[in-house]
């Protein structure tokens, strides 16, 4: 399951994308995020509970601000670089 967290507005679009099939729930991204925007969550996938990284509920509707410091470094942000399974990626298309 691929989850998109982010926004699309007049300034462009920005999404952090987490692939639950690749994520093993190691939590390294949670540690390195300077904004503490990520957390480990239990997701219900194929009738099983799986622990995976996710953007914390409190940050989901303000990613524009939470991720603004890292945003210009598309695909070179700490969370993306630390993940050895390439489970995290991002897109940024400014308008």
């Amino acid at each position: 399951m691929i989850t998109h967290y982010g926004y699309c507005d007049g300034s462009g679009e920005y999404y952090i994308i987490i692939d639950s099939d690749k994520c093993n729930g190691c939590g390294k991204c949670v540690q390195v995020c300077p904004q503490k925007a990520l957390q480990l969550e239990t997701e219900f996938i194929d009738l099983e509970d799986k622990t995976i990284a996710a953007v914390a509920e409190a940050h989901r509707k303000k990613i524009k601000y939470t991720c603004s410091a890292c945003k210009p470094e598309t695909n070179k942000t700490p969370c993306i670089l630390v993940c050895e399974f390439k489970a995290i990626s991002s897109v940024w298309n400014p308008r």
Partner: protein
Amino acid sequence: MSQPTTEFWRWQEYHRIMPNKKWTKKDLITAGVDVGSVGSKAAIMVNGEAYSWGITRTGSNSPESAKKALDYALQDTGLRVNDLKYIVGTGYGRVNVPMANKAITEIACHAKGANYIWGPSVRTVLDVGGQDIKAIRIDETGRVVSFLMNDKCAAGTGRGMEVFADLLKIPIEEIGEISLRVDKEPEPVSCTCVAFAKTEAMGLLRKGWSKEKVLAAYTRAMAVRMANLINRVGLEKEVVITGGQSKNIGIVTRIEVILGVKTLPMPKWRENGLDPMVAGALGAASFAKSLYEKAQRG
């Protein structure tokens, strides 16, 4: 003398039992309770088939709304809460469904529910809820492949439509049809934020725009926003819309035009009575059956 107040936004709460369906003590009876930000839905399944449901307005207290919806679904069925073998809670208030055996995200439940209502050909589900929009790509089993939730507030959602119904004094059920009564589609309003869009709409009304035109401009803006979300997760046919706005013909028609998807398959509920608004609750009840059977197997 004071003017009687009419609440144009207030949509109809209702409950329904599927005709020609019966249950016995031997059947596996499960329930799904979907506490949304605006509506609370509960669905009862007998052996994995939809049996009854209830749709109510979510109040200020999630556990109470969950109970109200479930009681409404059970009403006149002869079933009691004790007859339910497994209950899954979902939606915005899923952690506050006290009678639930398990909570599952509404993403998984809407995917499963859409698969149940329309069958295995569905690949893209657009769930337009009271306070958010979700674009979900699924496979033929109803498993979530990819999903995206809108980031902000009530922009382009059911609650936004309620605000416009009130502003324009048009009953919410008629808003979609009336928004289509324009000769030429106006430019969409520039603000999708409900608070700003309302201000913008008032300005347009003062400029002499008709209600129909204002509504068309707002509905258009919402549809553009939804289409953007779908394009991000990738458009694949068949496309369906769940949630309360699936009943808004103004939204549905415009999304079809923008996406160039000629025929969004007619929701089957027009034929067999299933309501796309209870997709999440049906999905939850379906998971409840699978989870109960899994627990029995040990």
